[in-house]
């Protein structure tokens, strides 16, 4: 009898080298075109969530720093707004080019600081950030055409708060249209991921952007709360949780300061029985495990037609078991580190609630590094629409599966949410895809794809997922006032 040995096929480690990264030990606040000591006197380390090691120290913006930031921005606004559009465009084109030139460094720093797989920061975050600047640079001298030939003027000083899931990309989504429209911006990066915004500040210097046009005010939630309430602001844009968005909207009540909010989601990814199932499974995986599920539009509610439920779940589980979880710098990693201890605790609490409420949990078995924050990809079946894991945003690599029989039921279940950011439809029938897409209350609907972004395509939510759009001509409107 012949004995057949089992061969374990695996990948050799393939870590991206970080030796070309030029990070300082300590970063001040980027105010008036230069890095300066914070009035708060405080510096806070930014932690690598994959190792729990500090990467660099970052200034903490306190109340006096907020005042200084607004002053500098106010002073810079008239000249910037008065520049011919083409000249503003040239600065933005320069920034786009510099992001491309420093793409490798930016990708590594994004991964070190936030824990996302290098494959994603390299192939998605950084190229899209450059593309965004490139797209809006081209708008700067064509603004009237972007708002249906209306007379427009910039708003002034805009305060922009971005989240930790796509730090540089969200900064680009905010800064590029704001600057193209002739505003100056104060960017508040997330507490746990400030580093690429600070590198972007260096890029602004390199591009010789006039001082005060871009301010990078690092700090925490209190810094952001002080910024949106600061006198002298003409516009607030926020991307983050619905809870904080609600707080900002209430804080601005009665001020007439324009606001755009891009908030949470519990997006439905709908698989019909006529879909190409293998392709759908890839899309499900991309929809929920991309960036560890730290994606506001993640396909976190998977709706599967009953007739193919078992088959899809079997294929999905097989695919999930092959996901590689671990070192974000490794080029073969699919799922990196959870962004922070705080976020890990939130995911764990909601997953525990899912088990308590009676859903069936399957989590892939994999070796996780000893240090750092990790959560293995998890699948919940037997989920009822009332379960917390079907209602609340988990913002982690956890997918909740519900079923439906008819198209009408799929639409009803998909729309049964206070959120309305995105949705996915998997079907090979064109007419059905168009009909379902038009019935879904969601700002973005993907057919046979998921998590696809483009600077020319508007992105933003319905209902409690926020208001205002980013991308394309619709993304100009929140940064302009119409002159009557």
């Amino acid at each position, binding site marked *: 009898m012949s004995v057949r040995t089992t061969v374990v096929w695996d990948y050799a480690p393939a870590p991206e080298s970080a030796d070309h990264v030029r990070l300082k030990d300590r970063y001040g606040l980027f105010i008036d075109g230069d890095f300066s000591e914070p009035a708060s006197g405080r510096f806070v380390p930014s932690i690598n969530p994959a190792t729990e090691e500090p990467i660099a120290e970052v200034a903490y913006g306190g109340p006096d720093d907020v005042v200084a930031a607004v002053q500098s921005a106010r002073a810079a606004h008239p000249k910037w707004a008065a520049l011919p559009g083409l000249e503003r465009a040239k600065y933005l084109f320069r920034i786009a080019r510099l992001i491309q030139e420093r793409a490798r460094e930016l990708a590594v720093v994004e991964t070190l600081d936030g824990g996302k797989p290098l494959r994603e920061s390299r192939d998605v975050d950084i190229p899209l950030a450059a*593309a965004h600047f490139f797209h809006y640079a081209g708008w700067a001298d064509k603004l009237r055409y972007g708002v*249906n030939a*209306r007379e427009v003027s910039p708003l002034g000083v805009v305060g922009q708060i971005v989240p930790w899931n796509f730090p540089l990309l969200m900064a680009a989504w905010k800064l590029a249209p704001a600057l193209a429209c002739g505003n100056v911006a104060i960017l508040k990066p997330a507490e746990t991921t400030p580093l690429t915004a600070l590198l972007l500040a260096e890029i602004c210097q390199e591009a010789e952007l006039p001082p005060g046009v871009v301010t990078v005010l690092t700090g925490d939630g209190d810094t952001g709360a002080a910024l949106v309430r600061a006198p002298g602001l003409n516009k607030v844009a926020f991307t983050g949780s*619905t809870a904080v*968005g*609600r*707080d900002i*909207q*209430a804080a*601005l*009540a*009665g001020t*007439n300061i324009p606001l755009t*909010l891009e*908030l949470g989601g519990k997006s439905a990814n709908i698989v019909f029985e006529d879909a190409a199932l293998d392709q759908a499974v890839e899309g499900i995986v991309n929809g929920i495990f991309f960036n560890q599920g730290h994606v506001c539009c993640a396909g976190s509610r998977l709706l599967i037609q009953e007739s193919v439920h078992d088959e899809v779940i079997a294929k999905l589980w097989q695919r999930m078991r092959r996901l590689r979880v671990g070192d974000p710098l490794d080029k073969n990693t699919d799922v990196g580190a959870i962004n922070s201890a705080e976020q890990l605790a939130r995911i764990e609490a909601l997953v525990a609630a899912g088990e308590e409420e009676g859903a069936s949990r399957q989590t892939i078995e994999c070796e996780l590094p000893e240090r750092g924050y990790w959560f293995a990809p998890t699948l919940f079946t037997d989920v009822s629409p009332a379960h917390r894991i079907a209602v609340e945003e988990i913002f982690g690599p956890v997918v909740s599966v519900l079923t439906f029989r008819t198209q009408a039921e799929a639409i009803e279940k998909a729309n049964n949410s*206070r959120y309305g950011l995105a949705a996915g439809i998997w079907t090979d029938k*064109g007419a059905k*895809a*168009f009909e379902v*897409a*038009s019935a879904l209350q*969601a*700002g*973005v*609907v*993907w*057919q*046979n*794809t998921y998590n*696809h972004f*483009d600077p*020319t*395509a*508007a*992105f*933003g939510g*319905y*209902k*409690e*997922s*926020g*208001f205002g*759009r980013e*991308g*394309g*001509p*619709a993304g100009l*409107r929140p940064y302009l006032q*119409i002159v*009557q």
Partner: protein
Amino acid sequence: MTRLTVRKTYKLWIGGAFVRSESGRYDETDGFNFPRASRKDVRDAVAAARKAAGPWAARTAYNRGQILYRAAEAVESRGDGLGVSREEREASVDVLLHYAGWTDKLPAVLGGVNPVAAPFLSFSLPEPTGVVGVVAPDAPALLGLVAEIAPVLAAGNVAVAILSETAPLAGLDFAEALGVSDVPGGVVNLLSGRRGELAGALGAHRDLNAIVDAAGDAELSAELDRLAAETIKRVRHGEPARSYEDAVGDALERLEAVTELKTAWHPVGA
């Protein structure tokens, strides 16, 4: 012998029905009693509006345009029966006509194909926000109301409006004009009463998607903003429209305020 006139019983318009306030309360103006709507009436109106929202949005743009045109006809034909000046009535009719023509142009103006760098047909189109609460100004009682409601309907939304507090009869008469036009029940709901009592209940309603406030009261505006934040409602504040030009000069901004943009990605090729 002098003839005894037949007096009118003014009623609220909720879900396509003319009803008294569920509270049984009334106020009095110009020798007429009119219903003093309650918070429960606000809730009933929002529920009726929600029921009407889907079917209204699902009608073709052409059909919605025709219905708004028909509403203009109904107002025009009432002549003096609306109790406002001829100028105000005619401006109101013209505003309805203007917005009737918007229904099938808005997608071309606000939407378009996105030239994405991938093999997809990606396009962005405006869709109605949903159920919109309208706080009408005291004056002009009719034009001020029509200027807020017409863009809401033209963009495919449904409305729950609180009428002028000082001159509610014009709005209640307007309801009768709409009642004999083709506007489906629940698409417009009109409530008379005390603004201070009703606006808060409307602004706080969790099934309302947006608020259009033309009352011109800074304190109320701030309160509506605070209430809106609870469920991330869209809010637009504006001055009362005093002329046709006021009501249509910023038409696109009025339409944008109650419009969502949906981006769809459909694969091209495999």
